[in-house]
């Protein structure tokens, strides 16, 4: 078997260069930017605040409401501004991925809004959005038992790789490309898993293991950005 070469020369388990910054939107209660290679996401948290309309209030716990939005010029072919079926689904997926670590029982009848905006897209935008949102939620002072770390694993032909970019997403050779976005807590519990493509159980197991290993690096990036946002000098 010949060794598989990634288009940008990365090793199979190598993430793209990551950047993160916390506190980028003064109006928000919490905010953050997360960049992985050429994918850039920003997130703002507003709340907990009164839920309107009132009939959507939950008297037992606060409601987490995420919105994922791509800028029209974040991709090569301009996308029409406003929500789409794709963004509606991803928004819900993001809610599901983040909610397990939040203590929402303390905020009955309220809503916590998480707004995610993709500025520049080179695949992995939902994962970048989740990483930005994780930091923004912490920054907003929302009680959380852990951070959420998100990464797209992938299978290119028969090789499992981590942090798939757009060129790899479009990979056509052999078995083609399989995209596996995964989000997890720092202790490794999976809160989000999607897959598009073809894979067997053994390969998936390897993809999850690699994602879990990568999540440690993402954790360090989120941690550093959060800590650097506080100036103690």
């Amino acid at each position, binding site marked *: 078997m010949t060794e598989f070469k990634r288009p940008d020369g990365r090793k199979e388990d190598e993430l793209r260069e990551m950047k993160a910054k916390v506190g980028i939107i*003064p109006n928000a209660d919490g905010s953050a930017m997360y960049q992985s290679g050429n994918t850039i996401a*920003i997130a703002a948290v507003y709340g907990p605040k009164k839920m309107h309309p009132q009939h959507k209030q939950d008297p037992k716990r606060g409601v987490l409401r995420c*919105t994922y939005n791509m800028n*029209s*010029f974040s991709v*090569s072919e*301009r996308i029409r*501004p406003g929500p789409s079926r794709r963004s509606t689904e991803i928004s819900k997926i993001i809610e599901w991925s983040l909610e397990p670590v939040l203590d929402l029982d303390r905020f009955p009848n309220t809503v916590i809004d998480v707004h995610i*905006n993709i500025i520049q*897209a080179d695949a992995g935008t939902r994962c970048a959005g989740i990483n930005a949102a994780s930091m923004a939620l912490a920054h907003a002072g929302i009680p959380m038992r852990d951070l959420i770390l998100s990464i797209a694993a992938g299978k290119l032909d028969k090789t499992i790789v981590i942090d798939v970019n757009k060129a790899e997403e479009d990979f056509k050779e052999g078995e083609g490309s399989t995209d596996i976005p995964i989000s997890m807590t720092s202790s490794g519990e999976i809160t989000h898993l999607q897959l598009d493509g073809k894979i067997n159980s053994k390969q998936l197991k390897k993809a999850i293991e690699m994602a879990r290993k990568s999540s440690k690096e993402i954790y360090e990036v989120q941690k550093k950005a959060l800590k650097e946002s506080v100036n103690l000098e």
Partner: protein
Amino acid sequence: MKNINTTPDVTIKKINEYLKINKRFDGRKTDEFRDLIIEKDVSNKAEGSVRVKLGKTEVIVGIKADVAEPYPDSPDKGNLMVTAELLPLSSSRFELGPPKFDTIELGRIIDRGIRESGVIDFKKLVIKEGEKVWAIFIDIYSINDDGNLLDAAGIGALVALKLAKLPKYNEKEEKVLHDQHDKEIPLTDVNPIPITIHKIGNKLIVDPVKEEEDASETRLTIGISDGIISSMQKGNIFPLKDEEIFEAIDIADKTWKELFKKIEKFLKSK
């Protein structure tokens, strides 16, 4: 709708009192803009993009180009479409859901400022008359709203146009190659910037912060380039006197000179 997040009436009263002795809520002079910061290349997928900051106000503006059919009434001209999104991400005042009036108006004022000034040489955007022209999309996103998103967006639109490069077009295959750029967007030598003058009490001010916007009785946006006005919009219900309109134009003219100097400096430094 007014609520706990909008400026309280007592503060508005105070803003009015301050202005009587020509003092602004944040210590500025009445005709003083906040620091203008411009950054380019916000998105490498755009044909051109910038971030504009005025104090804590921040917008990003991106340009995309595509090949389209011309409008039936202008077969010899390219197309322009300006869209704004006032993101809930940028302020607790912006709600989810279909675009509200402010969003639509902002997009339209920027559109008219660009279109009517003639800054884009639309005739040079024709690939094949009556059939194929370049369509230019200017999209505006608010990132943080602390007043005067409109002027920030207008500055962003002009600078982004100047920085943008059209993608390559393969005529044979009728394909736009979005990852390859060659020539600049054909522009003329006008440089329209919308400058919004707000009337509070009997004073006119530029570049309001959010509290001042809440105190504003009437506003007049003047799309101007080197003394030539090509678009105007008076917003809100209070009337303006003739002399106020002409005073506003003088302020806009002076402000344009200051802002354009800064824009030129930025463009040279890039």
